[in-house]
């Protein structure tokens, strides 16, 4: 079974940086890339329990005549074979639906915002909804392409974090890049987390595969984040502690992406590692 990666192509230099990150991801995880060159500013994604309307800003429709050739050129350069998906079904004349049958998707931090906000900024609400509803992990790229050489999984102990960890293990296996763990444990001991790993039968695999476990019992989260290598892919689970709690106390996801410039791979609550 092939793994597929969904990317919405933006025919601008900024879009190029994002696209190159998606291509790099696909190359190293041996996924095939499915590129959508938008013809309309809106499209719908029908998930299991939610329908998300994605409003792209006008720059996504730049120069449609050159978009395809640009995309092909970049893909060929990266060594990935490009596949294009035209919109098949339409909810209304100008509102296509896009299939959600992918294994990964690339979402810029804020899909509908201006180019300037692509660099460190908050994660747009639409992206959050996609993460929440989708069965696949979402890749949130950094603003500039940089080859990542290791994988850092943020393990907070929740069920979603375990999923993220399984995802990280899978990625490490298939890319053959080193895997590190990051846990901001506060008062909990490392044994507590090892217990959680045991419950899910992955303690041995973690023992064997993880290069270094950055375990912090002190210090502020944002400060400890400095330990994350500049060229690592950050993997984390979202909404691990319940939506309300996150809204009140802030979420790990928020904090990580506002402090780290690294690309993030976020596994939402409906993602089940190994389900494909």
């Amino acid at each position: 079974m092939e793994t597929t990666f969904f990317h919405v192509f933006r025919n601008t230099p900024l879009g190029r940086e994002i696209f190159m990150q998606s291509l790099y991801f696909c190359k190293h995880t041996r996924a095939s890339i499915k590129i959508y060159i938008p013809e309309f500013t809106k499209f719908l994604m029908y998930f299991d329990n939610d329908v998300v309307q994605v409003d792209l800003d006008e720059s996504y429709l730049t120069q449609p005549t050159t978009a395809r050739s640009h995309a092909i050129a970049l893909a060929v350069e990266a060594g990935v074979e490009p596949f294009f998906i035209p919109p098949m079904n339409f909810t209304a004349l100008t509102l296509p639906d896009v299939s959600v049958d992918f294994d990964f998707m690339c979402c810029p931090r804020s899909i509908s915002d201006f180019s300037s906000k692509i660099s460190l900024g908050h994660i747009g609400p639409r992206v959050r909804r996609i993460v929440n509803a989708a069965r696949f992990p979402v890749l949130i790229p950094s603003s500039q392409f940089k080859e990542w050489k290791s994988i850092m999984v943020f393990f907070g102990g929740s069920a979603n974090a375990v999923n993220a960890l399984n995802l990280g293990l899978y990625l490490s296996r298939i890319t053959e890049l080193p895997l590190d763990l990051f846990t901001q444990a506060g008062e909990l001991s490392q044994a507590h987390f090892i217990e959680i790993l045991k419950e899910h039968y992955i303690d041995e695999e973690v023992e064997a595969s993880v290069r270094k476990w950055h375990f912090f019992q002190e210090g502020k989260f944002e400060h400890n984040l400095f330990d994350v290598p500049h060229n690592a892919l950050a993997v984390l689970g979202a909404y691990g502690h319940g939506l309300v709690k996150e809204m009140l106390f802030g979420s790990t996801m928020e904090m990580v992406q506002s402090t780290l410039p690294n690309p993030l791979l976020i596994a939402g609550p409906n993602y089940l590692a190994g389900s494909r």
Partner: protein
Amino acid sequence: MKLTIEEIARRLDLNLETLDRWIRQGRIPVTKKGNEGVFNEPELKRWARSHRRSYRMSPRSDKNEIQQGGCVLTSAMERGGVFEGVQGGDKPSVLKNCVALVPDLPLEFQAPLYNQLLEREALISTGVGRGVAIPHPRNPLDQGISSPVVGTFFLDQPVDYEAIDDQPVFVLFLILSPTVQGHLTLLSRLSYCLRDGTFVSFLKKIPGREAFLARVKKMEKNIDGKEK
């Protein structure tokens, strides 16, 4: 009851994707909780029945499964027994005596089996030449035999069998199998062995049980090796 989705798919013999989709669409009385499905077993069984599906608890075990490869002929022959000096002056009496000798065959099945053998002989003789015959019932035996069996009977006196080459027959291999598949496999292997002239000569010397089975085993191992 809570089971993984994969397990439920296996029990219902459903494609995993299809099951997932039916749960999402609400067409099967299972609700999803993470990687598991929650359901009420009697309900699910009822659902399965009304949708012409089977709900299977244990892994599929086909009691008629023939082991592919691995010396089936030898095992069948071991079960069927090797007999010498079988009496009989003509085909029917020889066959009757053979049937009586088949181990573990309940008495009530002997007569039907004998009739089936005769019916088969009526179609065309099972004497395949060089003194060898391979009688078998016209239809697979669905009762009386649980696993395939080949009885080897060396006759006291060669008997006119209306064989293909008109030579009298001195050895019978009685093939009994509950399935057509089993029958064909045994027949195929046996004929392969019989093609070998040296084997037929070996048979003419009326070897003892051990030597006979050993020889057959060696030949079968050869076949298995070739098939890999």
